[in-house]
């Protein structure tokens, strides 16, 4: 695709959780790229590997025996997969930042807000106390925290969920990262706050020119924010394209099923269509196309061949063997 201009280029990423005796391949041959200033969505059900994908990029695995087993992660010319821990520490925070799903637990309860923001400024940007303090105030006001000066001394438990997410965004942006990974940033927030936070992310993208990898299970969030989107199913990308392409012409039965399950798409008075069955067990995925046990259009070849992502129009790919016959 546009490999030359991409900020982040992921090729054939494979991530495994090694359990006792069994290995689960959470991410199985995922490729995508993110351009500078772009908001790229990664959407799918729980357990489809979207979080594992973005955590693989910065090698953030919560102590589990997880490894990036294959593939290339090119970030601004550096191969992240081959960096040692030291090199990774310099990339994290400074060039790639991340915000988390649950703002209630993502701030250290024993440190003042100001200290938590200033910590990164001093570590990565080498600012002195005074300069870091001024910068912290500026950051807090840029994420819409009112009277930031007086909030520096507050502890996280003084803040509501929406406010905490703003603080977390301020911390993430402290070092002007080129890429912000947002792992379900609004899932734990109520809808009005969700809208504010998404608008904030859009505004900050416009102001700073950073790229955003937006991980979500919410197609509404995708529609509101993302320029391009990849739909993941069972550790693989089912469909990828520009957001309008995906919504106007979903070219994979799974994407289609997801959209049919949305109230706005089904139309007034129509019944929502849930997707039958359950996502497959990734320790023993079904042969062939992983969606075939739940797919209404599954044919014999779907049970045998693993489909690759193929372009059906410029910038729009689908991993369905029958995409042409079905006229999706």
């Amino acid at each position: 695709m546009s490999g030359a201009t991409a900020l982040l280029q992921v090729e054939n990423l494979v991530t495994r959780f090694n359990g006792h005796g069994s290995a689960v391949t959470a991410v199985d041959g995922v490729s995508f790229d993110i351009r500078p200033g772009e908001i790229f969505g990664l959407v799918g059900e729980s357990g489809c590997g979207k979080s594992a994908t973005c955590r693989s990029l910065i090698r953030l695995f919560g102590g589990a025996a997880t490894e990036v087993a294959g593939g290339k992660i090119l970030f601004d010319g550096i191969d992240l997969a081959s960096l040692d821990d030291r090199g990774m520490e310099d990339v994290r925070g400074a060039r790639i930042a991340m915000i988390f799903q649950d703002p209630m637990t993502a701030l250290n309860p024993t440190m003042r807000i100001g200290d938590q923001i200033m910590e990164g400024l001093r570590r990565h940007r080498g600012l002195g106390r005074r300069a870091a303090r001024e910068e912290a105030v500026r950051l807090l006001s840029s994420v819409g925290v009112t009277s930031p000066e007086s909030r520096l001394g507050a502890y996280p438990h003084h803040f509501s969920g929406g406010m905490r997410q703003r603080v977390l965004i301020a911390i993430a942006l402290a070092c002007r990262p080129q890429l912000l990974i947002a792992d379900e940033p609004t899932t734990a927030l109520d809808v009005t706050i969700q809208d504010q936070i998404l608008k904030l992310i859009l505004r900050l993208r416009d102001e700073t020119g950073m790229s955003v990898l937006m991980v979500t299970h919410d197609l509404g969030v995708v529609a509101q924010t993302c320029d391009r989107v990849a739909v993941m199913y069972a550790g693989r990308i089912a469909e990828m394209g520009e957001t309008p392409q995906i919504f106007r012409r979903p070219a994979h039965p799974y994407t289609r099923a997801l959209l049919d399950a949305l109230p706005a798409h089904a139309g007034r008075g129509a019944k929502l269509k849930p997707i039958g069955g359950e996502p497959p067990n990734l320790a023993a995925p079904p042969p062939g196309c992983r969606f075939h046990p739940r797919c209404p259009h599954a044919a014999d070849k779907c049970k045998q061949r693993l489909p690759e992502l193929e372009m059906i129009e410029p910038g729009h790919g689908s991993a369905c063997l029958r995409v042409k016959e079905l006229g999706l």
Partner: protein
Amino acid sequence: MSLISTETRARFRRNRSLQIGLLLLLLLLVLTFIGPLLLSADPLAVDFGQSLIPPGIDHWFGTDDLGRDVFARVVTAAKVDLQIAIMCVLLPFLIGSAVGLVSGYIGGKTDIVLMRLVDILWAFPFYVLVIAIVGSLGPSIANMYLAFTLVAWISFARIVRGEVLLVKRMEYVQAAKVLGYSHLRIILRHVLPNAITPAIVFMMADVVLTILAVTALGFLGLGIQPPTPEWGVMISEGRNFIFDGWWGSLFPGLAIVYVGITFALLGDGLDDFLRPKA
């Protein structure tokens, strides 16, 4: 913002256990450090003419079989007992917490090796190990420190490790990693402060247990040696005259109870006070 926030002060005002505990501790410290200066009687002065006098105006807690003033001895003993108890808790607290922190944070093989070591030590009864170590090295204060440290760190290691396992999965620790902080910084600033509270609370309870253990060693003749006043030794010596002079054992016993209540209240109060709020 003032040094102590109004919220912290409000939390303190509501915390009755902590207030009473601190009050008792203050009284205890005053008696321990100022008390001996005000005593008229010499805790070591033997006077057979004055033996086994019941509590009264001249001798508030009476005198023992050798005619020594029991009040003077109880007050003097406080310093020795407290000093030993605190050292015997502080050293294991520091060592155990460090081990638990490292074990829980690094995990993997390090964790397995350290925790199996803890399991092995755990299999021996506390008193048996302490008595065995002091008994074989000979009774002295240094050997008591050594014995308690060798035996008691495992509780702290287990407590802190368990907390660290919880804390390190919290998103703020993950977030600290994403921000590119070094392991040392993450351990000291993000894990330790959130994992140490249960160990501090346990430390208060452990002071009580340790005082009992120290006095038990004194009672067995393995701790502080006579004639140095020590509560366990005093109870042990008074036992022989329990029917003629009950005061010889009762008052050092009450002193132990007092210290026990003080630290139990402190532990309870600190538990509420230090628990980080969500």
